[in-house]
């Protein structure tokens, strides 16, 4: 497993962890590092790196799981489509269990809705070709890593004249969410673990305003244990030694300074940037993607008519605040009582690395 296994070396991991802990000797107070990518949440948890590091470092999980930040209305819309007899919903596995206002795609599947889990958006095109009498609706969730794929898929559909393929766009952009968290001033963030593969697409530039306007260090980090430790070392050095925030790139083998210009051009060709609602952060300016007029015929919202139930947020669900780190799962009255991994009320309990789900394991 070339270019993977080398980044899992035990000795080197311990060396870097010791260097980080040495930097923190004598440091007064806690350093809060936030990651804004669900894959980083998973990698940090999976590798167990936090157990090697001093307790001075506090790891915060931000609104980086695209499924968790998708508001109920999107899921309710997908559910409404799945109830139409002539539609097939295609989705990444991540979405299947997330609760909407009153149901989830998993439950709809059990009630007769056609929902298919796919690995790649391209599979939706194949399903569309094989089911000419059905409307295939792909749930386009994900940040800048996934948006160019969906853009490319829409272009392929246009080229091949596939008329029964649609996308329900729920794509969101990471930098506006990072800015919103800092503007809210509700939590103390001392450094950002910036998402490696989002950055492979967008490059380093979008993080410059975070450093310039807020003075918060940003390091683009990969996903293997050595990447995480190297990146955290770079953040800690900025905070404790250099004392001058900047954008740095730990993941140089994948992330170019200018990003992937071809992918960015594809996003630009197919999508418009729009204001978008985020669970927990509200409506953020220029933080989401909608399908351009030129490709309206692939836009599910513009082509599929159906009644969508009135969006209901559970009044006691604190997923939004938990996602932003302003509340802990224990602060939620539903936690471990009405809301559990078997019966999740909100998305933080669904993903096995969701904050509430992780806390639930520890409470036992």
């Amino acid at each position: 497993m070339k270019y993977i296994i080398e980044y899992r070396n035990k000795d080197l991991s311990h060396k870097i962890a010791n260097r980080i802990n040495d930097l923190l000797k004598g440091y007064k107070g806690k350093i809060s590092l936030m990651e804004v990518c669900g894959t980083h949440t998973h990698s940090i948890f999976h590798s167990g790196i936090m157990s090697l590091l001093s307790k001075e470092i506090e790891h915060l999980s931000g609104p980086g799981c695209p499924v968790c930040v998708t508001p109920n209305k999107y899921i309710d819309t997908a559910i409404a489509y799945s109830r139409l007899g002539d539609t097939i919903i295609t989705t990444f596995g991540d979405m299947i269990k997330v609760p909407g206002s009153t149901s989830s795609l998993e439950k709809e599947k059990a009630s007769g809705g056609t929902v298919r889990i796919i690995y790649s958006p391209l599979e939706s095109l194949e399903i569309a070709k094989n089911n000419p009498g059905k409307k295939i609706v792909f749930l386009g969730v994900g940040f800048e890593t996934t948006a160019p794929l969906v853009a490319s898929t829409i272009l392929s559909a246009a080229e091949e004249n596939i008329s029964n393929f649609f996308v329900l766009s729920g794509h969101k952009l990471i930098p506006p969410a990072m800015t919103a968290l800092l503007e809210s001033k509700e939590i103390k963030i001392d450094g950002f673990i910036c998402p490696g593969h989002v950055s492979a697409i967008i490059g380093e530039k979008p993080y410059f305003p975070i450093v310039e306007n807020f003075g918060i260090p940003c390091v683009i980090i990969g996903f293997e244990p050595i990447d995480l430790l190297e990146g955290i070392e770079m953040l800690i050095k900025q905070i404790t030694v250099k004392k001058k925030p900047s954008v740095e790139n730990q993941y140089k083998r994948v992330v170019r300074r200018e990003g992937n210009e071809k992918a960015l051009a594809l996003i630009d060709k197919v999508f418009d940037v729009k204001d978008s609602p985020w669970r927990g952060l509200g409506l953020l300016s220029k933080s989401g993607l909608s399908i351009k007029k030129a490709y309206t015929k692939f836009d599910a919202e513009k082509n599929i008519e159906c009644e969508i139930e009135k969006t209901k947020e559970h009044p006691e669900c604190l997923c939004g605040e938990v996602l932003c780190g302003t509340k802990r799962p224990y602060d939620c009255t539903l936690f471990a009582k009405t809301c559990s991994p078997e019966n999740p009320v909100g998305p933080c309990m669904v993903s096995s690395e969701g904050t509430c789900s992780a806390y639930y394991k520890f409470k036992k």
Partner: protein
Amino acid sequence: MCLAIPMKLISIEGNKGVVELSGVKKEISLNLLNNVEIGDYLIIHAGFAIEKLNEEEANKTLAIWEEIATLQKQ
């Protein structure tokens, strides 16, 4: 939302390629990249190659680590 992994490109046909990792092979789209060659390591996300791994950069760092490890053993 960044689950992606480096896989080696073993064949190209138009805008599609086949990548391989430890005997696992998959046809993927090359639509997001220019100038890829057989033998390149590509970062694969949901059936697409989103970037080419910079082997020179990777090998540079790996070599430094190797050197440090050797020095410390002496």
